[in-house]
């Protein structure tokens, strides 16, 4: 029983990471109908940035905030410089650009920082008061930080004029132009926010999986599975899906398939959702006239 609790709770901790990645994917998908395959690699690169700052003596939380800011700026820049020129091209062109981005960012990280796994510090000391018998201090802190970040993102979309404008763009870009919204900038800001969420996921997950250029490959798959499970056009669903996938993965890893085959759970979820309910648990069925 105790082991089950442990697996459940640490599944939730991992789920927070997947939920962040899933939300980042959904944010870009909703406004452009593109799935950013490079989302994980951008998160990995952001984490290296934090690592480099910490290694240079910057205090953890300062590096944390600086990394979030730099990731936001990088996300905006990538949308403006790389994605914008191809936004109206056929979908295959966009996919190739995203895959190119994935490979370039991955190789750049390897070239700059090397392929040796690095230890990434956790800001939560092992003997912190919130360390429990089921979860380590880092896992508790990770859940708290991801939940806080998700709450901030949702409040931003719900309560600020900028968030409202971004939701409007996701719903109807043409009508958004007619009320004077600068649609291009809203898309860029969406990329910035997605990159920020990714950076958070990277920094929270790195102390557990160790930092190396391929760190996020699996996590992106889990995030994608979560997004699909919840409904790729539904932010709440994506977050819920991320948590569900986290728990499923842990339970299946512990009791069903074993840890070596954990990643196949994500793939099974992706295929299962696409076959049984392509719109996801909370997604909307979209009917379009052709």
């Amino acid at each position: 029983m105790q082991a089950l609790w442990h697996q459940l709770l640490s599944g939730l901790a991992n789920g927070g990471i997947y939920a962040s990645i899933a939300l980042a994917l959904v944010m870009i998908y909703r406004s452009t109908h593109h799935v950013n395959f490079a989302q994980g690699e951008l998160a990995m690169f952001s984490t290296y940035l934090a690592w480099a700052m910490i290694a240079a003596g910057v205090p953890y939380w300062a590096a944390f905030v600086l990394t979030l800011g730099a990731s936001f700026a990088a996300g905006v820049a990538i949308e403006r410089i790389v994605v914008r020129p191809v936004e109206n091209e056929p979908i295959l062109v966009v996919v190739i650009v995203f895959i190119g981005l994935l490979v370039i960012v991955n190789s750049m990280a390897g070239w700059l920082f090397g392929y040796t796994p690095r230890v990434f510090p956790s800001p939560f000391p092992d003997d912190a008061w919130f360390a429990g018998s089921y979860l380590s201090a880092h896992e508790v802190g990770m859940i708290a930080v991801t939940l806080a970040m998700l709450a901030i993102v949702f409040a931003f979309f719900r309560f600020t004029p900028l968030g409202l404008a971004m939701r409007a763009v996701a719903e109807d870009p043409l009508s958004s132009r007619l009320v004077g919204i600068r649609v291009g900038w809203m898309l860029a800001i969406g990329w910035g926010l997605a990159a920020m969420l990714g950076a958070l996921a990277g920094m929270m997950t790195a102390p557990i999986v160790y930092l190396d250029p391929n760190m996020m490959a699996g996590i992106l798959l889990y995030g994608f599975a979560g997004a699909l499970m919840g409904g790729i056009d539904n932010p709440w669903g994506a977050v819920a899906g991320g948590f569900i996938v986290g728990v499923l993965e842990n339970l299946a890893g512990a009791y069903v398939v074993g840890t070596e085959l954990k990643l196949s759970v994500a793939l099974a979820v992706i295929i299962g959702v696409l076959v049984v309910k392509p719109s996801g648990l909370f997604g909307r069925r979209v009917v379009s006239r052709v």
Partner: protein
Amino acid sequence: MTALLELTNVAASYGSTEVLRAVDLTVAAGGITALLGANGAGKTTTLRAICNLMVRTRGEIRFAGARIDGKATEDIVRLGIAHVPDGRGTFLGLTVEENLRLGAHTRHDRAAVAADIARVTGAFPRLKERLQQQAGTLSGGEQQMLAIARALMLRPKLMLLDEPSFGLAPLVVQEIFAFLRVINRQDQTGILLVEQNARMALALADHAYVLETGRIALKGSAAAIEADDSVRRIYLGY
């Protein structure tokens, strides 16, 4: 009278299909101009050309004296041109209140925006009752009211209305047209009104143009056009 909007020799095309050939058209400051004509004559395209929306245009478009042709849609809107497109351009997944707030997206005077929301919902009480409802749940008439209310949230100098009577019950149409007249009188908002319902449009407008396959076939005061039986029969079909 000074011209608020002035189109000179404007042509417009979708891809290689030319829809407008040579349109000259003026909306006076504080005036209401009706743009009439059969389906496919180019009425909607004229409005799109003014906002640089989805069409390629040639020719000269001036707003309050300054050239606006070639500017981005959002910059044209920011000058004070509110376009209520065909299909209404409502954000169906957002609430009525959010739609109204989006109408005021370019404004930063919070108190005045709140006052304007109170004003438009005062004019359309049904919107007030449904402020927190999703816009997609409104009836057709309510959605048209919302579209006009949202356009007013910009505090526009000029409103472009694309068939506000389309698909609505006569009583609702009367309510909407009466409100347009109030707006025009109180705020001196210029209106360019595209309509199938020529009778209602001519009753509201002071000037009218009749479009025929991409050209202005006829123009004059609304009263004169309405009084001319042969014009009515040939171009307006009533």
